[in-house]
């Protein structure tokens, strides 16, 4: 009883204490040492800026726009990356043929695609989505591929002996579920990289709205408190997306992995 309470106290309270401590240190440093809002806005400056932005009502549009860019990019990455990774992992000839192209394109930084994103799609949400796509695509592809390559031969043979013999059915009933943990990891990493690309994509190709766009606009207007607000919102939203995805995957798709060594 006492032990569980101490445990709870430690696990719940300690993070809150550390966040509060960080905020206090930040406030003290900003207010009494730096004493310059442009170099380092204080906690209260940022909170004030946040409330003003909240009242202006434009945060909702920024959220919606950023999520649209993100959704386009990640959606496309899943739609193309997962089937391609599955096919490359399963059919050896396709693997041999496609691998060199993938390996050459993979190290090209997503932001290097910005010129072509603008030329191909103009200054549209699709152009921003395309940059997110380039960031998210390769982790999704590579992890799906690895998952399919790593499907234990034993499972495939067991399925074949039980009457599951065509490649299509083996992929659907054996390879896909066996590779699911790896695919889920790929999606998580892909979403993380895509989220990081989002800000830069909106700097260059975004329209009037978007968290990344506003961050950039605030900087050019020297509203550094607003810059911090957008930074924190980007961080918190990214965290929320990841937590929601993890919750869904662990609860639904990968329930069978509880208790297995990951």
């Amino acid at each position, binding site marked *: 009883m006492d032990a569980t309470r101490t445990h709870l106290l430690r696990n719940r309270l300690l993070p809150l204490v550390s966040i509060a401590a960080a905020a206090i240190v930040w406030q003290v440093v900003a207010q009494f040492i730096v004493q310059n809002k442009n170099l380092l806005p204080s906690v209260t400056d940022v909170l004030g800026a946040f409330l003003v932005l909240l009242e202006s009502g434009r945060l909702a549009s920024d959220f919606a726009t950023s999520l649209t860019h993100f959704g386009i990019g990640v959606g496309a990455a899943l739609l193309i990356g997962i089937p391609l990774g599955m096919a490359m992992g399963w059919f050896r000839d396709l693997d041999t043929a496609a691998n060199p192209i993938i390996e050459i394109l993979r190290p090209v930084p997503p932001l290097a695609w910005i010129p072509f994103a603008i030329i191909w799609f103009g200054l549209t949400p699709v152009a921003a989505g395309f940059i997110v796509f380039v960031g998210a695509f390769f982790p999704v592809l590579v992890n799906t591929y690895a998952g399919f390559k790593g499907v234990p031969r*034993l499972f495939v043979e067991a399925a074949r*002996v*039980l009457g599951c013999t065509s490649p299509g059915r083996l992929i659907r009933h054996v390879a896909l579920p066996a590779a699911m943990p790896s695919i889920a990891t790929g999606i998580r990493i892909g979403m993380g990289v895509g989220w990081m690309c989002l800000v830069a994509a909106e700097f260059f190709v975004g329209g009037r709205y978007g968290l990344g766009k506003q961050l950039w606009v605030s900087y050019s207007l020297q509203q550094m408190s607003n810059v911090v607000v957008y930074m924190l919102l980007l961080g918190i939203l990214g965290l929320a997306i990841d937590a929601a995805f993890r919750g869904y995957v662990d609860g639904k798709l990968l329930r069978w992995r509880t208790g297995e060594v990951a």
Partner: protein
Amino acid sequence: MSKLSIDRVSKVFEKKQGEVVVALDDISLEIEETEFVCFVGPSGCGKTTLLRIIAGLETATSGEVSLMGAPIRGPDPKRGMVFQEYSLFPWRTVKNNITFGLEMRGVPKADQVSAAETYLAMVGLEQFREAYPYELSGGMRQRVAIARALANEPEVLLMDEPFGALDAQTRNAMQRELLEIWEKTQKTILFVTHSVDEAVFLADRIVILSPRPGRICDTIRVDLPRPRERTGPEFADVRRYVLGLMDSCRLSSKI
């Protein structure tokens, strides 16, 4: 006509440097309906390869295996297999593992459920129908694997050292259960093991294989009544006799 006919089967593996390994050399054997046949031999004698050829997972270099007159060309639900390693699909519950083969054959859902219940009861795991494989012990996993193979109603059941990874006590219990299942279902069973004790306890007939190249060295019929008493004198006699045959096999194959 015999149930399963193995006719002059040979298997040659080619290694990367062009080196050739003869895994099986001219194996011929007839297996009767409802017969329980054990294959024993030291590791590397090709007994698993033979079973895989019968399952359709490997093709023979020459010769042919036929089931009730029909030559075997590939894997087919008519030949169920239980592997040595834990081969249950970890993403499926016990029940859904058992119905996998039925699902693949498009059996109606209601029949799948009743089949699952039948075989769950046969292996005594009714309470675990919704469990995932990670929640089961090794012995339970192999019981589910047996139920999964039987649910497909195969003509023959192929078992590749299915109890090899289990502790001695669980192993003995599983052998007794397997015999009960065999009596209930009247299946023809081909069982690979390296344990002479296991073979003598289970088999109607024991096929002794010699290593490199894998050849049938001898086959003996075990006529002891079941249930067999492991510690009894007749059991010991058969064991000693089989071990003696295996020794002379090894010596003659070295020459």
